[in-house]
């Protein structure tokens, strides 16, 4: 019955899965396809429309748009995955620990999480990006730390709900240690409750990085990155609209697909 439900779930989302599959393949395989180098400039062929040698044309520095497009998701995806992993690890751990421990530990941790939620994250991100260079590691860690707070909050309430359940009380009565209960009863069930939240955070982080790149504080030229490509090509819209529209379509389709996948309506 459950298997049937999962199949139905997937069946309704065929289009979404196709889009996600496409993006995954592109992101993983881009460097292995025989594409023109993303930073090779052909000064003789600036701002060309689609042609046989340049399927989507060239940009203002003569670089091949198609190649840059296919490579353009990788920087943000790498950062989004690492940051989300960090955010989850920290967030779920803190949130569930707070709920399990209760008492002053819970109070203290909750205060810290509330403080972090009050911080204007994007400004801080701009600051960090600006002052510490645009090192992907620094950005991943910073993003991970910032987005750990909302995850911690959801993890805490999910854990509290779980702790009230009788099977957890039974585990305590039968001699389960706190750690054993945490990993055995709480965390596996918490993950199921949190899957949607984590997926949403993943997309927010992805968008945050693209926006940073757009503002010039994320990926730095000549890296191909969708947000950066939009920013760079804005002035040349009228000459080759693909320069702006193509990265927008790629970014939008990826984010929409992920959110639609976990959307319960």
């Amino acid at each position, binding site marked *: 019955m459950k298997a049937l439900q999962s199949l139905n779930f997937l069946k309704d989302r065929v289009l979404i899965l196709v889009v996600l599959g496409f993006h995954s393949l592109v992101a993983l395989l881009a460097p292995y396809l025989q594409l023109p180098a993303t930073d090779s400039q052909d000064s003789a062929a600036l701002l060309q429309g689609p042609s046989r040698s340049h399927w989507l044309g060239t940009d203002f520095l003569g670089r091949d748009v198609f190649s840059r497009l296919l490579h353009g998701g990788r920087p943000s995806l790498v950062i989004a995955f690492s940051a989300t992993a960090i955010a989850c690890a920290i967030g779920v751990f803190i949130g569930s620990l707070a709920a399990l421990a209760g008492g002053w530990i819970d109070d203290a941790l909750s205060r810290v999480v509330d403080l972090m939620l009050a911080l204007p994250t994007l400004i801080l991100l701009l600051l960090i990006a600006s002052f510490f260079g645009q090192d992907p590691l620094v950005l991943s860690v910073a993003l991970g730390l910032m987005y750990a707070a909302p995850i911690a909050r959801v993890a805490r309430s999910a854990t509290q709900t779980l702790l009230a359940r*009788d*099977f957890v*009380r*039974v585990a305590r*009565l*039968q*001699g389960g240690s706190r750690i054993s209960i945490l990993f055995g009863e709480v965390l596996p*069930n918490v993950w199921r409750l949190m899957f949607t939240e984590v997926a949403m955070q993943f997309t927010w982080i992805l968008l945050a990085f693209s926006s940073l790149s757009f503002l010039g504080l994320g990926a730095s030229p000549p890296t191909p990155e969708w947000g950066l490509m939009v920013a760079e090509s804005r002035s040349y819209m009228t000459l080759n609209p693909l320069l702006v529209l193509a990265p927008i379509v790629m970014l939008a389709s990826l984010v929409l697909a992920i959110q639609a996948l976990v959307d319960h309506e």
Partner: protein
Amino acid sequence: MTLDPVLTQSHFLVFNNVTVRIRNEPSDTRPVLEAIDLQLEHGETLGVVGSSGSGKSTLLRLAAGELAPGLVLDQGGVTTVGTNLLVATQAERTSIYGGEVALVAQSIGESLTPHLTVKGHFRDTVSGEVVDDQVLESLAEVGLGGKKYLHRYPHQLSGGERQRVLLALAIVRSPRLLLLDEPTSALDVSIGSEVLTTIQRLQRARGFALICVSHDLGVVSQISKRIAVMNQGRIVELGQTSRVLRSPAHQYTKALVGSIPRHDQRVRGSRLQSNEKILVCRELSIVRGETTRAIDSLDLAVTRGEVLGIIGESGSGKSSLLSAICGLVPVRSGTIHDGDGYDLSTASQARPREVLASIQMVFQNPDDSLNPMRTVAESLSRYTRATNTEMSSALLSVGLGEQFLSRRPREMSGGEKQRAAIARALLTKPRLLLLDEVTSALDVIVQAAVLRTLAEIQHKLNIAMIIVSHDIAIIASFVDRILVLRNGQVVEHGSVADVINSPRDDYTKKLIQISAQRSSV
């Protein structure tokens, strides 16, 4: 199915060969309602009894002209006060509801709008000038006299008061047909009994026709002259209440009537007591939250192999007491020791393994006791480290076959899950088993079966038990000694015979009286 003699022609409500199915299901699956034929006349009272899944709620809704979106009327028709409500327009319905027909839904959770005062609720249907008088009259009739109730919010009312407000709302426009869905299942027995008396009084005074749906035969028999017994979508028996209860014709009805616990009918033989104490509480006090005294200076002793029954309604402190014995909840003052002198005020995580193993508990909600992601085998063995053989024999002792080892909770019924929970508790070979309302969430027939199983286990293993229930009949038919708990204090205490035959406390007397009323016809 036996039908009583033909009724007069003034049929108030008619179900004509009604079959209801789940939308889009193939035609060989069991329908929700099958071939329902029912007539109700003016001023008549009818009770509909059945377990969950019997279709009784669907039937009630249909009488009100409501069909859930996932259901479809396959055959037949329903006529209520002369109209087919299923095809009525929105306007027709709005004028009929509350006016001609009123339905009081099951009041689990919030049946009253949380942000409206009591008076505010009446304003939907009673307009303008006459409001206050009419409303006050309605409220007084249901036992909520005085102006103070007008401005209260639902969360400021007790469960019984909320149910009465719902009744007042239903009768304020003098309907000719009142439909009640589980009117007392969310209430304590004593409160529920009072509400039922009020309903009886209202019906006699105003003369409306009444259909009352409940899983509880006692509730239904109190206020209806005729009873319909439902099982799996069909009406299996229909007739005068007294006749059906005294001499049921259908097999299902027989099983149903036979399963109802009676305080004067033993399910388990009494035992000779040993003198070895395994639990002693002295002046035990437990506090919930900041200040609420859940248990107040309680004295208690349990001997080996003895079954102690604790009767208490909500707020009596019974669950806090059991939780404290297990070490799940801290003790404020007083002492609590086990048979070896170990101080049981220690929290569960600090107790040594042997102590933990010697006291185990089974909880009320079958859906909550087993980790939904685990098989029975995993749930049973994870902390007890029991072997397959041990688990199989434990399951067998609770009446479950070996195949249940690989089942998951979602594949099991409520009764099966409770049995698995009991098996799990037995795996540590406890001296004392705590049972917190373990059958309250089960259907009456399943409940009787589980109680029989518990009796067998108790006899075979000579295990001491503390059974908590709000139902004095269950307690009296099973245990050796009774303790009546009210507001954290013991108000009655003694052997079953003593307490039931010569109760000293008024509260106990009332509970016994209500139970007697329900089992007499």
